[in-house]
């Protein structure tokens, strides 16, 4: 087989490949009988083209560490109690260190032994002897433990958020952990950022606490709280309908938390048609709830979500069966989202929205239309110019140009890359680069013809000399594309991908495909036939 024949086979295969992986991205083709035999890979569109919400959340890991330290403090206290060692004046400093005083210094050896055995993740940063020989401990987490804790917290947050989004129902969400304490979330199709943020950003830490009505609220507001009590705000509605915050003193210890929720649903009040969320506890939760309500008859129980009391009804009876309701002034949508969030569970630590980008569906479609328009105009202008300027050789360059676009789109589909709006700009640029390469070659061929070389020899010379220059010229742009891919985010990566794919494809089409077509075309010519270039 001659060299031309096998090159023709390669060109044909490339064309079939380009079409086979490009066509399935068109809806009409997928629906047609052709769709069933073509590969299923499709070009996936970025959020900037299909519309949706992009969020970057930062997990408040310091808060998570502080919580874990406080929990560690509780555990040390109860372990010590079992060994009849008294721990007093325990508190958290700067949310970073745990301080407490060992009341019985003679038991220091036993206590240290216990710390070492049971609390491997914590380290004693310093000990000081305070009044009457008691020993003050300052403790923190080891670097290793802290790192693990942070990583676990972020993992847990990702899991919870994924759970919420699944329950909420979003097609093809993308939730991933990023470097450090960040989580990136992509929600295609959503358009209300407020709702999305409420859904993924609400900590949803639900607690039930007993109200201490004997405490002096006025004093509490000045910071004078009895031990084991805390001040929270209850959102109530005045007679005239305006919401106000009312202070409430509750026992610090939560009698029940959101962990024990088995299910949460929206119901409507028979009287005023207001939506409320009803909770079903797990069997264990139901048992605790029954005991707690029985123990605290005629007292009030505050239902607290993220530090704010939604209501604080008086316990009239021991409540068996494990049901509770959260009433409040919210819309049906808010109630539904709250139910989703409660079902999916609480975040291990609060999260902050660091970045939010939303593209509405109409702008996405507009961008696609603009992109298609730009590509069509650019393609038309180039094709016309090449045809006028280079006659038949221009046709060859135009075939290479079209094949180049097909190869880029099929590359996107094959590698599962995302097409973004800047990505469309990348396609347009590489269209020009593909034609540029052919211009460099054609100009060289013209030069060789002027020097008196016969057509076939000029083509050979033109392509051979042109190829290396083109390779080199594109190398620097490829370097820029690779660097952009490495350091870019989202849409810019899309640009880098199409630019890189386009550079590779354009070199193949402009050098290999064009040459094959040119040689095929002159192969039947007589030696003296002039080249249409």
């Amino acid at each position, binding site marked *: 087989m001659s060299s031309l024949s096998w090159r023709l086979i390669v060109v044909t295969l490339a064309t079939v490949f380009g079409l086979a992986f490009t066509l399935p991205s068109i809806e009409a083709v997928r629906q047609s009988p052709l769709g069933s035999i073509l590969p299923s890979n499709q070009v996936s569109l970025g959020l900037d083209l299909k519309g949706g919400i992009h969020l970057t959340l930062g997990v408040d890991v310091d808060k998570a560490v502080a919580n874990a330290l406080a929990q560690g403090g509780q555990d040390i206290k109860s372990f010590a109690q079992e060994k009849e060692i008294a721990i007093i004046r325990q508190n958290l400093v700067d949310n970073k260190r745990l301080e407490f005083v060992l009341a019985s210094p003679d038991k220091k050896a036993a206590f240290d032994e216990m710390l070492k055995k049971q609390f491997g993740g914590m380290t004693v940063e310093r000990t000081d002897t305070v009044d009457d020989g008691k020993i003050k401990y300052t403790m923190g987490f080891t670097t290793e433990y802290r790192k693990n804790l942070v990583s676990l917290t972020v993992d847990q947050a990702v899991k919870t958020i994924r759970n919420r989004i699944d329950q909420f129902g979003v097609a093809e969400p993308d939730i991933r952990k990023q470097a450090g304490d960040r989580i990136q979330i992509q929600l295609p199709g959503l358009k209300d950022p407020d709702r999305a943020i409420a859904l993924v950003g609400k900590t949803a830490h639900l607690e039930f606490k007993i109200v201490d009505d004997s405490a002096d609220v006025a004093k509490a507001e000045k910071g004078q709280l009895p031990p084991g009590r805390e001040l929270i705000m209850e959102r109530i509605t005045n007679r005239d309908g305006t919401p106000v915050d009312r202070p409430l003193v509750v026992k610090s210890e939560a009698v029940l938390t959101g962990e024990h929720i088995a299910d949460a649903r929206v119901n409507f009040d028979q009287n005023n048609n207001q939506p409320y969320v009803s909770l079903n506890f797990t069997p264990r939760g139901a048992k605790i709830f029954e005991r707690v309500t029985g123990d605290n008859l005629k007292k009030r129980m505050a239902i607290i979500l993220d530090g704010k009391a939604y209501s604080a009804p008086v316990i009239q009876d021991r409540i068996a069966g494990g049901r509770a309701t959260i009433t409040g002034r919210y819309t049906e949508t808010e109630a539904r989202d709250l139910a989703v969030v409660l079902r999916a569970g609480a975040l291990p630590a609060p999260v902050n929205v660091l970045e939010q980008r939303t593209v509405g569906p109409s702008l996405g479609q507009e961008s696609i239309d603009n992109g298609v328009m730009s590509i069509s105009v650019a393609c038309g202008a180039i094709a016309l110019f090449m045809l006028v300027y280079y006659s038949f050789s221009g046709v060859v360059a135009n075939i290479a140009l079209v094949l180049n676009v097909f190869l880029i789109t099929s590359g996107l589909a094959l590698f599962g890359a995302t097409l973004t709006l800047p990505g469309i700009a990348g396609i347009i640029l590489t269209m020009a680069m593909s034609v540029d390469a052919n*211009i460099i070659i054609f100009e060289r061929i013209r030069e060789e013809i002027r020097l008196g070389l016969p057509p076939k020899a000029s083509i050979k010379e033109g392509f051979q000399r042109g190829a290396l220059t083109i390779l080199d010229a594109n190398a620097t742009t490829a370097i*820029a594309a690779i660097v952009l891919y490495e350091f870019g985010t989202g849409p810019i990566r899309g640009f880098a991908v199409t630019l890189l794919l386009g550079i590779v494809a354009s070199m193949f089409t402009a050098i290999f495909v064009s040459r094959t077509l040119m040689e095929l075309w002159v192969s039947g010519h007589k030696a003296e036939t002039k080249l249409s270039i």
Partner: protein
Amino acid sequence: MGLELIKPNINFNFLGYRRYAYVISLLLVLAGVVSLVARGGPKYGVDFAGGMTVQLKFAKAVTAADIQKPLDAAGLPHLTVQRLGQEKDNSFLISAAEKGEPLEEVRSKVDKALKAELGDGAFEVQRVEVVGPKVGEDLRAGALNAIFYAVVIIAVYISGRFEQRWMAAGLMGAGLTSAMWALRHFGLSTGYLIIAAILVTLVLCWALKLKYALGALVADVHDVFITIGIFSILGIEFDLTIVAALLTILGYSLNDTIIVYDRIRERLGQAKGEPFEKVINDAVNQTLSRTMLTSLITLFTVTALYMFGGSVLKDFALAMIIGIVTGTYSSVFVASPILVDLGSGLDTFQQDEQGAAEGGKA
């Protein structure tokens, strides 16, 4: 043969005009630098400075004042309201700079204030961008790093590429890397590091007698600087897509230079005994047609993008237009003539030296 926009026998004395060209280039670069200094650096968009932008499309014709009024009433000052595109589009951009207040709340308030004043269906939120200070800082660092690495890698590549002296390129790579490592060690920020990298590269090119690499780099940096300068003068914000455009210019504007340089090398091999100046001028003339045509084609496409690509890609396309025009100009008027002015002291080509010697004899 088909059309010929530029006649094959063209023989324009480009080198003769090179001093004028240097002055024009210098003035353009200086104007950009003055603008940058006067404005205290590039004007950063939401991506880099942090802040909030909301793009709204209204159902009925409204004016910026109609939008501003309810926002002021809601106690939301420091917001700028701008019309986007044509008057018939009824599109507006509302933006707020990062000032430490929670941007998500500002956005939410804007939404509520406008809905309360104009009604629920009066507008559609087409685009929202809220970038917190931390993310803005990260994106800025990422962009600067991208520019830095692109400059360094391209510098090393072209220092080896033109003269096939990969030893020299290796030395360049080693020298550049260690200089950058040392400077970074001293706590130099990435922005200055980029400028330092460019300077170190130019000095190393000089020291290693890499004349062609030096010429190409000067032209390349010239193109990117002028693009940045014009953007600064026009007051256009820099965001991620502009950085992508700058890097593309950095890579693409070398194309024309590479073609001319390849022709110079080819001519030096053939036309022994001709003066260096004539060889260069001939090479520029011989490749002029393809230089102009390739730039024209690329201009077609980015102009199509500028006109039809929509608001998001408009500035990207403009940067590319400026970059391509200056890139073409610089490959003809800067990159090639500068080879002559860099002097024979930097000559590295064997053929070149031989040619000069033979020319001396004749």
